[in-house]
C-alpha cells in the first residue's frame, strides 16, 4: 500500500511539475543547486525515471554524509516529457538557481534538448553535461567550453564496437571482407555515427551498410529482411526506446542470430532487452556503467537512501539497473566537479563558470575510483580544456534472459584516429558561429 502511494505520489508530482517547479530539498544560501530537466511521463519515461532516480539518490547520499565540504546539494525538477521546447523552457526557468543557491550544471539526458540549449549554456556560462551522448565535436573544449560529452561520445562508441568485433575476429586485419550492418534510429542521434562507420570501413576493409528504422521503430520487418539478404557478420544496433526490443524480436523472426547484434549505449538497458523475452537471450551491448548493486557506492546509497525509505525510485526494484547506475555515475561526476572546483574557488556554493573549471580538470584515477567506491562502475577519466570526453572506453555485456553479464574488459576507442575529425568539425562550427577557439595550451 505504501509502495502504491509512493508510486502515485511520484507520478502526481511529475505531472504537476510540468507546470510547476518542485523543490525537493530545503533551499538556502549555503547550498549548491542542480536544475533537473527530467522526464517521468511520456514515451521515454522509463529511461528518465531510472536516470534521474539514480542521480537524485546519489545527491541524497552526499547530503547524508554532510554535503560537499559542508555545502549541501539541492535540486528541483521540471518535467520535459523529452520534448525539446519544454526542455528549453525548463532550462530558462531553472538556470538562475534556487533561493540563492547557484546552479552547477544542466543534465537534460536528451540529444534534442542538449542541442537546443547548447548556445544558451555557453552564453549563460552554465555547464551542459551530455554523458555518453550529445554532439561529438563538443569533445573539443576549445570551441565548446561549456559542453561535456562525458565518458563516451558517439564516435568513440562506434570505434570501440569495431575494435571489439576485431578482437573477436582475431585482430583489426581480420576485419577485411567482413560485412557489418548498422541499424539506426531515424533521427539526428541515429545518423550521427554513419560517416565514422564508413570511414572505419575504408580503413579496415570491411563492408558497411547503414539501414534506417523510422521513428519510433515498432515495425522493422523490411529492414530485417534486407539484413537477411545481406547476411552480415555483425549488426550494430543504434536504437532508442521501443526500437530495441522490436529489433531483437524481428531478428529472431527472420532468423538472424541475436548474439551477433551489438547494441550501442542507448540499447543497453534492461528496458531494451527484457520486453523482447527469449528473443533477447544472447544479445550483446556496450556499457560504460554495468548494472548491479555490489559496488560500494551502491551499497552506501542502499544504506543511506533506499533502506531509509527516501529513494527517488517509485519502484525500488529498479535499484542497480542500467539507467539507475548511469544516474549514479552522472551524480558522481557532477559532484566531483563541484568538489574539485571548491579546491580552487573556496568551499562555498559556486557559479556555473566555476563548476566548469571543475569539470574541465576532472581526473578520476584508480585511487579516486576506490575512494568513491566506484571501481568497475566507472572508467578512469581525465578531462582537459581540449578533451571534454575523457574516457572513450566501453565494456561489453550480454543478456542472459534475465540480466546483463559483463563479458569483456574495457575496450578503448581509437581516439587518435577520431581526434582530427572532431577538431575539423569543431573548427567548422567555430567558423560558422564566429567563435574564437581558446588556446588550450594557456589554460590551467
Amino acid at each position, binding site marked *: 500500500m505504501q509502495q502504491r502511494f509512493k508510486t502515485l505520489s511520484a507520478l502526481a508530482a511529475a505531472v504537476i511539475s510540468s507546470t510547476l517547479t518542485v523543490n525537493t530539498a530545503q533551499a538556502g544560501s549555503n547550498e549548491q543547486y542542480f536544475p533537473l530537466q527530467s522526464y517521468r511521463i511520456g514515451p521515454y*519515461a522509463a529511461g528518465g525515471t531510472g536516470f534521474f532516480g539514480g542521480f537524485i539518490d546519489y545527491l541524497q547520499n552526499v547530503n547524508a554524509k554532510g554535503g560537499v565540504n559542508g555545502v549541501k546539494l539541492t535540486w528541483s525538477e521540471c518535467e520535459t516529457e523529452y520534448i525539446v521546447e519544454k526542455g528549453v523552457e525548463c532550462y530558462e526557468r531553472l538556470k538562475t538557481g534556487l533561493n540563492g543557491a547557484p546552479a552547477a550544471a544542466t543534465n537534460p539526458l536528451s540529444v534534442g534538448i542538449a542541442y537546443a540549449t547548447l548556445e544558451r549554456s555557453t552564453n549563460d556560462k552554465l555547464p551542459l553535461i551530455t554523458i555518453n551522448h550529445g554532439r561529438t565535436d563538443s569533445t573539443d573544449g576549445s570551441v565548446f567550453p561549456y559542453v561535456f560529452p562525458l565518458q563516451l561520445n558517439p564516435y568513440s562508441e562506434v570505434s570501440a564496437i569495431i575494435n571489439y568485433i576485431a578482437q573477436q575476429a582475431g585482430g583489426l586485419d581480420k576485419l577485411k571482407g567482413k560485412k557489418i550492418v548498422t541499424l539506426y534510429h531515424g533521427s539526428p542521434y541515429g545518423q550521427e555515427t554513419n560517416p565514422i562507420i564508413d570511414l572505419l570501413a575504408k580503413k579496415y576493409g570491411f563492408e558497411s551498410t547503414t539501414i534506417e528504422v*523510422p521513428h519510433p521503430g515498432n515495425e522493422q520487418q523490411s529492414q530485417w529482411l534486407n539484413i537477411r539478404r545481406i547476411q552480415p557478420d555483425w549488426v550494430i544496433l543504434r536504437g532508442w526506446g521501443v526500437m530495441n*526490443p522490436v529489433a531483437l524480436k524481428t531478428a529472431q523472426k527472420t532468423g538472424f542470430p541475436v548474439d551477433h547484434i551489438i547494441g550501442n549505449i542507448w540499447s543497453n538497458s534492461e528496458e531494451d532487452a527484457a520486453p523482447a523475452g527469449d*528473443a533477447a537471450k544472447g544479445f550483446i551491448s556496450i556499457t560504460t556503467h554495468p548494472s548491479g548493486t555490489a559496488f560500494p557506492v551502491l551499497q552506501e546509497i542502499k544504506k543511506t537512501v533506499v533502506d531509509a525509505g527516501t529513494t527517488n525510485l517509485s519502484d525500488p526494484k529498479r535499484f542497480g539497473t542500467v539507467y539507475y547506475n548511469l544516474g549514479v555515475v552522472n551524480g558522481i561526476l557532477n559532484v566531483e566537479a563541484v568538489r574539485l572546483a571548491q579546491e580552487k574557488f573556496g568551499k562555498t556554493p559556486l557559479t556555473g563558470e566555476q563548476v566548469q573549471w571543475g569539470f574541465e580538470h576532472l581526473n578520476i584515477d584508480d585511487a579516486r575510483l576506490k575512494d568513491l567506491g566506484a571501481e568497475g562502475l566507472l572508467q578512469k577519466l581525465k578531462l582537459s580544456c581540449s578533451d571534454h570526453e575523457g574516457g572513450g572506453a566501453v565494456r561489453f555485456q550480454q543478456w542472459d534472459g534475465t540480466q546483463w553479464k559483463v563479458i569483456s574488459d574495457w575496450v578503448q576507442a581509437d581516439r587518435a584516429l577520431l581526434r582530427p575529425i572532431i577538431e575539423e568539425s569543431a573548427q567548422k562550427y567555430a567558423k560558422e558561429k564566429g567563435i574564437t577557439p581558446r588556446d588550450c595550451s594557456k589554460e590551467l
Partner: protein
Amino acid sequence: MNFFFEVLVGGLLAGVMYSLVAIGFVLIYKASGVFNFAQGAMVLFAALTFVSLLERGVPFWLCFLMTLAVMIVLALGIERWVLAPLANRSPITLFMATLGLSYVIEGLAQLLWGAQVHGLELGIKDEPFIIGGIFLSQFDLFAAGIALSLVIILSIFFNKTQIGLSLRAVADDTLAALAVGIRLPKVWVIVWSVAGFVGLVAGLLWGARVGVQFSLSLIVLKALPVLIIGGFTSIEGAIVGGLIVGASEKLAEVYLGSVIGGGIENWFPYVLALGFLLIRPAGLFGEQAIERV
C-alpha cells in the same frame, strides 16, 4: 523472386496488426460518427492494465476479464463525462474531445501503473518456420487468425443482433433512432466498451510484439492510412486497408527505399492514402456520403 514474396507476405501479416487497431476506430465511427483519436491510448491503457495485473500474480484469463471490466468502466466514464455533455455538438468538437481524452488516458495509465516497460509473453513462439523458402512467423499467423475471428464476430454482432442493429440505426440517423426508442447513452457505452475490447486484443498482440510501453499509443499513426484506404465505416475495409498498407510500405521500403533513401515506410502509406483520397474519398469500402445541397 523468393525474396519479393517474403517481403510481400511479411508486409501482409504486418498489415493485419495495423488492421487490429483500425477496427477500434471503425467501431466508434460507424456507431457514432466520432473519429476517436483516443483509440491508441485505449490500447496502451488496456495492455498496461493487463500486464500490471499479470505481474501481480493474477491468472491470465482473470486478468483478461478484469481488464475488460476496467475498459467497460472507462467507457461508462467517457459517456458520462465526455460524450453526454457534448451531445449534438459538431464532429470536429467531438474529435477534439477525443484528442484531449487520449492525453488524459495516457496520463492515467502511467499514473496508475507507472512508466516502466513490461515484457508480455502470450505463449506463442515468434520463431520462424520456412514454407517454400519463405520465412513465416507463427506469431504473425496467430495475429492474423485473431483479426479474422474479430472481423467475423463483429460482423455477426453488427448485422445479426438487436444491439448491433441499434448501433447501426444510431449511426445512420441519430434523431430517427431516438424517435423509435433507442437509448443513445446505452448505445455509446456499448460501442466504447466493444472498442475497449478490441483495444485490449490489439494491445495484447502489439504488447507481446514490442513490449508494453508508452509507444503503443503511437500505433494510431499506422491505423490512419488504413482507415483512409479501407473506409472509416467498414470493418472489412479495415482489414483490406491494413493489408494494402502493410504490403505496400514493406515493398516500398525494400525496393524504393534503396533508391531514394531508407526510412520511407512511415510516410509512404500516407502518400498512398492521399492518392485514395483524391480518387476515392470514402475509401474502398466506406459509405459514400450523399448530401442535399
